[in-house]
């Protein structure tokens, strides 16, 4: 039995118009991500990988094509439904962390719960759990500028997973980090993945991409090649089940 498909895109296109010049960032991307996969998207800058992640994260709609998240075509969502999808079904980690500078680590982690109308007490508990999961429980009340880059990115990861999203997206999550911090963050992502989560990570670094179970290579807004590195953990379990 194959793992269920979490993400499926069909002919995804994105065009940016600035003045008279139009840039075709995506030129028909067909992509499928199954439950429990850790997909790495590689490519040189300008290949469209960040645009792809932005569309997968419902941060902007595609110009054309379909984007199925579970059994819904997210490409047709209005602003409000897209916001809801970002809140409840997608977690995103950015290269530059994107934490609110005046809010503590715990407050940043709680943010999605605030918009989901979760009562404060439950919010605090879940934020503690999420911070514990990334090993930062003792930094809960620190402001972002009191944390190292790696710690900030782990806070961002905690924020991304607090709603138990269907998929965790990461855009160059180690791009702004020294190698030690990068390892810390990758270790956290690996742990989340081994817990059964589905991940899509954009990176330009081969050694980072190799943490994934599969790599797709992009160039000029299209998927150029892909390589399967190993069977995802959840996939393996499914295979095992299928075998018996």
């Amino acid at each position, binding site marked *: 039995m194959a793992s269920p498909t979490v993400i499926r895109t069909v002919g995804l296109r994105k065009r940016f118009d600035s003045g008279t010049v139009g840039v075709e960032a995506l030129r028909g991307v067909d992509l499928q991500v199954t439950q429990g996969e850790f997909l790495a998207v590689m490519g040189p800058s300008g290949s469209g990988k960040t645009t792809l992640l932005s569309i997968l994260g419902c941060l902007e709609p595609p110009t054309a094509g379909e984007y199925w998240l579970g059994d819904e075509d997210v490409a047709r969502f209005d602003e409000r439904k897209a916001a809801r999808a970002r809140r409840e079904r997608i977690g*995103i980690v950015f290269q530059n962390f*994107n934490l609110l500078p005046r809010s503590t680590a715990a407050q940043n982690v709680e*943010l*999605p719960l605030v918009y989901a109308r979760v009562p404060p007490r439950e919010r605090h508990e879940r934020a503690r759990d999420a911070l514990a999961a990334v090993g930062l429980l003792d930094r809960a009340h620190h402001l972002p500028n009191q944390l190292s880059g790696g710690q900030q990115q782990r806070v961002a990861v905690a924020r991304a997973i607090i*709603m138990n999203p269907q998929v965790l997206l990461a855009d160059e999550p180690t791009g702004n980090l020294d190698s030690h911090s990068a390892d810390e963050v990758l270790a956290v992502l690996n742990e989340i993945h081994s817990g059964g989560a589905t991940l899509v990570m954009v990176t330009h670094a081969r050694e980072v991409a190799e943490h994934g179970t599969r790599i797709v290579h992009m160039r000029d807004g299209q998927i150029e090649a892909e390589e399967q590195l190993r069977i995802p953990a959840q996939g393996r379990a499914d295979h095992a089940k299928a075998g018996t």
Partner: protein
Amino acid sequence: MRPVEFFRLALQALRSNWLRGVLTALGVIIGVASLVSLTAVGAGARAGVEADLERLGPNLVILDGEVIVLPDGTESPSDRTITPGDLAAVATLPGVTAVAPRQGSDGLVVSAGARGSSSVVSGITPVYQRIHNYEAEQGRLLTAEDGRLGNQVVVLGQRPAERMFPGGNPVGRTIRVIDREFTVIGVFAKKGFLGDENLDNQVFMPLSVAKRVVFGGENVMSAAIQVASPDLVEPTLDAVDELMIQRHRIASGRGEDFSTEDQTEIVTTAQAATSTFETLTLGLGAIALIVGGIGIMNIMLVSVTERTREIGIRKAVGAEPGHIQLQFLIEALVLCAVGGLLGVALGVGSASLISNLAGWQTMIDPLSLVVALSTAFVVGLVFGYYPARRAARLPAAVAMRAD
């Protein structure tokens, strides 16, 4: 997002830049403060009018004799055009409860020994004292008996009393009015001004005595007509006009030898300057509020631009456009509410300062506070709406790319 979170957020945002918040709200603070203090001045002035009416006598129509221009172009020598017959006829008009004739002269010299005073000397009846609410401070007022017996007595106002008998008690003393001696029987309590007329610079004597001894003739210069209720003032005014035109056989187009006035009108005219000032400054307050609102809109727009990234982050983790819009709108509202409260405090403070420094009567009407605060709230709503909507419409991906 729960409502209380929006307020927490707004307070947090304002606290992080409180000086800017206060400066932004300054327009609203000044606007609300001027609205509050000026309505206090206005309410005080209106209360003053009512107190004046109470002081001078309510529900009065004044019938005044006038100097008339004769057909040959000369003026009649006297303004004593109101005859005893006129007075009797006026008294029979419906609604009229009292008629108080007055015969007098402005600026007559009255004296006691070497000391003198230039005062308004009037011959009146006790009715006049009653309907104008005169009260004795020393001695007594005039009585009907004084008139009947032709007693040569006077009641002094505060000013002639002080001029002629500084520091002493004038009651029982003698004063001279045009070579005639009068005994002072009383001093009436302070009345203050009606417009620029000092009501305390008067000397009253019985009308019969004034006619016989001082002025001569039977006609009088004016009469105060009291009616039963305020709404009878207008109709009585018209009825008196009509009656007098008939009685004096005044052809249409010819000048009248009398005029009628509503006492309320006299007082209101005296206060007109105040109310003009009030309207003017209320307008200024409203302009200050609008300017304040524009200031708030301006700063909110700057704030939206500055916080584009924050908006992007919030949207990325699932804030809906409505959440962002409400966040910024409530921030503007909180700003205006705080500005409004500070403005109310400042307004109440300056109202009492105006009372103390300018000596104007001020009155804080709780309703005016509610109106001022609601106005500030509406200003926040109106001028906060556009920036908030702009924030809400920022596309998430674009906002995330901001520096």
